[in-house]
């Protein structure tokens, strides 16, 4: 290494560390400056500071942060001290800052330590680990420098269309990122046809995760055809328009969209989501030939057992498969997963290696300490990633049972004896899932919906019209709905057209956060908050203070 090289590297690391500390002291977490400074001194500083680190990279529309949190929690519990970019700094500058700040002045990674009693792959294992959450659009910049051992793609949905354009553009961006990381083992969602297409024409080994038809069958749901009920009301020709406006919005639409978990008996096969799949789909037509997919079953949104009748492109039987859902409640879920023996998975990854005969699939009970169906997917992704990284499965199973929510995702606070749960929602798929979760709970609660349209959120908030807030109708347990944020007026309007009574909705003006907090603290029943990104930040700060938790930046 030349003198110029080492000087550049030292300057990059030092400037990054120094600016980060300064910003933290000024209470300015989460800016891109430290990473940009480091890259200014040395463009490829990420490649240098991540060399030899076993990195699992997680990307995809929904579930990045939670899946990464599951992985890092498991690694931490096992003493692997992984490097993580947990603050949501998931662009190139953020990832760079995380690695540069953790390196010594010669650019060598410092964090992590050898685990002497871990026998697995002792010769190849550097003992340094990282779990990186990466933005879908940034993957192509991050992957070639970081050279991750494993790339997890959770799912792809429409998300912030004004920033990324269409979901197809996002898919192509991810595909390019993977093309630049031909060595990485891919962990792909087998149920997502868009994600599955990433395996086409690439040399990378793939480990698939997904949900089996048998798991869907364990969840029963009742769907009432409400369109008929609507028409009946419509025929009443009496009264003024205003009276009818009230009357129609008061009509109890029944238990539409409700689902509950059945443990035993076999029942009719229904999707987990209350919507027929044709309502919203980001992937209706075969990505290879344009023919409409046939689905054997749906889990939610466009996920499920897809198959193209024309060219045969179809779901792969997953290596990590959720085979049954035994229970979901506010504290988490219990499921069974069929995990292909680590050895048999790795025979494909490293075919030249000698493998033992003990390679049969095993059916494992898995306890996930986070509720909702989408976290079952995240857990399956995490297990697949652990397996792909050739780490002991037992670690991730234990990790999943003890994982905490992260940064607004299913985060739980207790304030003055009242439970407050925060579920970050940024797009229709995520929001529908969160609403399904709420509707499945029987207990009375207050619902808070928050919406901003700042840069980090996306300026286009039209996606709220793709969310099925209709399922909140007739949910007697949801006593009151508060709306807040720069676009609270839009939320309020959306709820009106979803058929909710106007008097059940209370709008809190954007500048009156204090009033919103008071209403939350005064609630006699549990509160569920569904914010988008920038509405989550001030709320979360306030709730943490009220609940007496540490500040987010631990320094």
């Amino acid at each position, binding site marked *: 290494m030349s003198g110029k090289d080492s000087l550049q590297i030292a300057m990059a690391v030092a400037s990054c560390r120094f600016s980060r500390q300064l910003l933290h002291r000024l209470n300015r977490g989460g800016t891109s400056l430290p990473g940009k400074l480091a890259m200014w001194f040395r463009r490829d500083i990420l490649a240098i500071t991540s060399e030899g680190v076993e990195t699992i990279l997680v990307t995809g529309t929904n579930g990045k942060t939670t899946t990464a949190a599951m992985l890092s929690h498991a690694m931490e519990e096992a003493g692997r001290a992984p490097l993580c970019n947990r603050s949501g700094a998931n662009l190139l500058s953020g990832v760079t800052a995380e690695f540069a700040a953790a390196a010594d002045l010669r650019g060598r990674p410092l964090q992590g330590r050898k685990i002497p009693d871990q026998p697995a792959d002792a010769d190849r294992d550097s003992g340094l680990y990282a779990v990186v959450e990466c933005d879908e659009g940034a993957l192509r910049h991050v992957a070639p420098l970081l050279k991750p051992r494993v790339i997890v793609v959770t799912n792809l949905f429409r998300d912030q269309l004004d920033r990324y354009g269409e979901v197809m553009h996002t898919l192509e961006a991810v595909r390019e990122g993977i093309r630049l990381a031909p060595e990485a083992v891919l962990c792909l969602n087998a149920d997502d046809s868009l994600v599955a297409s990433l395996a086409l024409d690439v040399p990378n080994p793939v480990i698939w995760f997904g949900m089996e038809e048998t798991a869907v069958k364990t969840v029963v749901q009742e769907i009432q055809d409400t369109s008929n009920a609507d028409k009946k009301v419509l025929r009443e020709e009496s009264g003024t328009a205003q009276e009818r406006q009230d009357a*129609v919005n008061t009509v109890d639409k029944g238990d539409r969209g409700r689902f509950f978990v059945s443990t035993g008996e076999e029942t009719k096969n229904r999707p987990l989501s209350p919507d027929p799949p044709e309502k919203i789909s980001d992937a209706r037509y075969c990505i290879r030939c344009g023919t409409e997919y046939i689905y054997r079953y749906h889990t939610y949104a466009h996920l499920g057992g897809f198959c193209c009748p024309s060219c045969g492109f179809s779901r792969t039987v997953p290596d990590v498969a959720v085979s049954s859902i035994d229970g979901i409640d506010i504290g988490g879920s219990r499921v069974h997963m069929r995990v292909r023996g680590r050895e048999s998975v790795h025979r494909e990854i490293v075919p030249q290696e000698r493998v033992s005969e003990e390679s049969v699939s095993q059916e494992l009970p898995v306890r996930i300490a986070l509720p909702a169906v989408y976290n079952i997917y995240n857990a399956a992704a995490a297990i697949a990633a652990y397996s792909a990284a050739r780490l002991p499965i037992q670690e991730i199973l234990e990790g999943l049972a003890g994982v905490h929510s992260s940064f607004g995702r299913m985060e739980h606070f207790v304030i003055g004896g009242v439970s407050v749960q925060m579920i970050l929602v940024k797009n229709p798929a995520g929001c529908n899932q969160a609403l399904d979760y709420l509707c499945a709970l029987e207990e009375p609660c207050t619902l808070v919906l928050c919406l901003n349209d700042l840069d980090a959120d996306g300026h286009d908030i*039209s996606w709220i019209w793709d969310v099925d807030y209709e399922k909140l109708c007739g949910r007697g347990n949801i006593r009151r709905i508060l709306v807040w944020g720069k676009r609270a007026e839009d939320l309020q*309007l959306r709820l009106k057209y979803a058929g909710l009574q106007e008097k059940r909705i209370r709008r809190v003006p954007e500048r009156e956060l204090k009033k919103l907090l008071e209403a939350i603290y005064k609630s006699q029943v549990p509160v569920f908050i569904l914010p988008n990104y920038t509405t989550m930040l001030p709320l979360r700060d306030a709730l943490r203070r009220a609940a007496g938790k540490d500040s987010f930046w631990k320094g």
Partner: protein
Amino acid sequence: MELKICHLYPDVLNLYGDRGNILCLQKRLEWRGIGCRVDYVKLGDPNSLTGYDLFFIGGGQDFDQEVLLEDLCTKKGPEIGAALEDGRTFLCICGGYQMMGHYYETAEGEKCEFLGAIDFYTVGGKKRMIGNYAFRLGEESGGSTVIGFENHSGRTWLGSGVHPLGKVLKGYGNNGMDKTEGVRYRNAFCTYSHGPVLPKNPALADTLIETALRRKYGACSLEPLQDNFENLAHDTVLKKTV
């Protein structure tokens, strides 16, 4: 009284919450005690398009739009054209709007033939025109101010015989150059506005309903609704846009 609405290609053209327009029409009819039936006519559906009072076509992804071109131009095209000339009401948004014109020419010069039901064409551009925007409707369409969200790279140029739907107050509109937005031809209302456009612009929603009812039943006057939420959302976005 009853309006029969045809939602064309809901399976393909369903981006940006455009289905909110259908919901808005349904509710505003329902609140007035006017019947409403919505049929969803998908790609490849052989059903006839006659007998509908109002047609809705939304926007979609480029990939999906390619999928439906053949169905649109060779199968449904003639019926759509006939319904349009017959004075049926149309609401066409973004990609659905572009398809009513002669063609779309990509920035690379590749030409994609469309329906040609209305005299205009669209040319692809490099820079996407994205953001909240506002325009004033022409007198023939009620004259009110509309706010919406535009997100398109195509630049649309109107033929000499057709009028724009409105005049841009803030934002890009048809092409970012001539201040025109959308097209109004017979009873077709075509616009780039997502948002979705109708819920926050109740005056436009009612103009559409009135236009369709008038064609079907002759004279028509709509009972006013209490549009507090609608107007508040409209005014809030207008204030931050203009």
